[in-house]
């Protein structure tokens, strides 16, 4: 392809790429993030065991310690849990669910927040006043409380037998709805600045409608901060999901996320089988930390004042 070298050169030469190359922490964080995402996304193919295939489970394997400890078995590197499931495999499958829920919640939050922020900033008036007051009210509750509330309402409102099957969508909705305010406020602020810039006026003189201007002109120019917030929000969303699951209102043990694994393993912490809860906890820390480091770098790299 003839354009490829030009495109590659451009990307390589971009300020972002340059700042990336100069930050070893970011490179490590990116590698870790990629490893976590890869391990989680391809868990069914990469994991040594399938923890959900009841046929392969053997209660005799239960409570095996990690491989390097006396009594450990080489086929269970990080040991097994109370039902004989391989801890490494449950972590990979759990991370898959955690990440899936986290990403989906962020996408939902961002979509809602960006749309509302864009609309409020561009249209202004009563709509803006109303939405922003709602945002103020929501901000006075902790995010986790909102997620708990939405989750609780959904549990009461929906028939009991559907709970397990709709647990994931409910969780995504409740985490997502608790995070839109930040996107909306940021986007609204940038939109207020952008809509008065002359290129927007030029588009209006040409005769473009408000929706076209919002989508084609304003949106691309307010997405920078959204990217930063989104990246950092992934970490927060995963933690929120883990907290909900740890409290028992998130995902059921049949679809365990990292939070569920930590809660289940917690019961065995004091009876000596520490690995059942510590390794999922470590995985959660590494995942969230590397995503956050990435987000911090992105925030600094996109901020012209710090360059």
């Amino acid at each position, binding site marked *: 392809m003839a354009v490829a070298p030009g495109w590659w050169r451009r990307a390589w030469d971009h300020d972002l790429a340059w700042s990336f190359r100069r930050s070893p922490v970011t490179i490590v964080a990116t590698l870790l993030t990629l490893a976590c995402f890869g391990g989680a996304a391809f868990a069914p193919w990469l994991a040594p065991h399938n923890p959900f295939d009841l046929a392969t489970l053997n209660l005799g394997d239960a409570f095996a310690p990690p491989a390097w400890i006396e009594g450990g078995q080489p086929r269970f590197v990080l040991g097994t849990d109370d039902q004989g499931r391989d801890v490494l495999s449950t972590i990979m499958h759990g991370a898959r669910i955690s990440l899936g829920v986290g990403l989906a919640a962020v996408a939902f939050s961002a979509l809602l927040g960006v749309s509302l922020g864009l609309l409020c900033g561009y249209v202004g008036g009563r709509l803006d*006043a109303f939405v922003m007051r709602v945002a103020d009210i929501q901000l006075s509750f902790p995010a986790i409380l909102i997620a708990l509330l939405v989750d609780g309402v959904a549990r009461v409102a929906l028939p009991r037998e559907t709970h397990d099957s709709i647990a994931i969508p409910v969780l995504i909705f409740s985490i997502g709805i608790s995070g839109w305010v930040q996107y909306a406020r940021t986007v609204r602020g940038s939109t207020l600045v952008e809509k008065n*810039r*002359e*290129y927007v*006026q*030029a*588009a*209006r*003189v*040409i*005769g*473009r409608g408000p929706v076209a201007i919002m989508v084609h*002109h304003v949106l*691309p*120019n307010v997405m920078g901060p959204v990217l930063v917030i989104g990246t950092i929000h992934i970490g927060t969303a995963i933690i929120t999901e883990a907290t909900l699951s740890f409290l028992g209102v998130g995902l059921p043990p049949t679809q365990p996320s990292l939070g569920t694994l930590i809660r289940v393993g917690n019961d065995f912490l004091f009876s000596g089988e520490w690995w059942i809860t510590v390794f999922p906890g470590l995985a959660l820390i590494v995942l969230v930390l590397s995503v956050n480091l990435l987000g911090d770098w992105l925030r600094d790299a996109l901020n012209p004042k710090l360059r």
Partner: protein
Amino acid sequence: MPIDRDNRPLVRLIAVGRDFDVSRPWLNRVLEGAPRQLLRAVDGVSLEVQRGETLALVGESGCGKSTVARLIVGLYPASQGRIEFDGVDLASPGAFALRRRMQMIFQDPYASLNPRWRVRDIVAEPIRVLKLMASEREVAARVAELLQQVGLVADDGEKYPHEFSGGQRQRISIARALSGNPEFLVCDEPTSALDVSVQAQILNLMTDLQQRLGLTYLFISHNLAVVSHIADRVGVMYLGRLVETAAADDLFARPRHPYTRMLLDAIPDLEMTGKPRTPVAGEVPNPLDPPAGCAFHPRCPHANERCRSERPQAIASGSALVACHAVTEGRLQD
């Protein structure tokens, strides 16, 4: 210059006014008992722009000249009066189609181009929005032609705005304005953000394009030297009102309104004739609370009782229209 047989002015403003609501937010008004506050940015402006001419509007910052520009292109609706384009009221339902016959060039070449768009898409936007061409191949050819017309090369279309200097960006702006084949261009301080040598390039380009394409310009500027170079007729604005309208040569040779005289006296004297520049006392009053009578009376050396109470109307004085009691009463000598 192609002159239309039709003598009807292309653009006509009849007693146009524009108010801006500068009140505090609703909640503050209720809590603090503050009243609604309106700022009259444009106040009873009447003018005509003839086909093929350049009419310049001059005045200091806050005099409402940019607001007039935005009223004409429809960025704001007028609060009072009416604006006609080619004889049709722009507020009437059928006037939307007329809008495509006018375009605007903005002051800040760094803000007037969307930084995320390629130049070719920026220039092609009017063509696509107005559906002037069917195929993308035609659009590309037209964009290349436009870029060459404003002194750029066709390959520049692939680049982004940040790769260009201020003057080149202003050329891109002009190419975008021309791409919808307009007859009338509203130019809001198109060169005041540019260096003088670049300003000369842009002014020459605009003059050249006007002659080749038979364009009509409304040229907004605070720089009288630029205005004297490019304008056929000049309107002088002060605090939202039009105080004098005259042919450019006439205005610079024989300014009538005291404010026009003051502005001309304040032009830096590049010829160094030794003529002392007369610093004018005072500053523009707060537009929220404009003086009664003639808005200029607090700074005017010729003001009398009538000027302080009665607002002067624009009255013909020679070939010019002047809103000044002193001029109509003959109190002011040339």
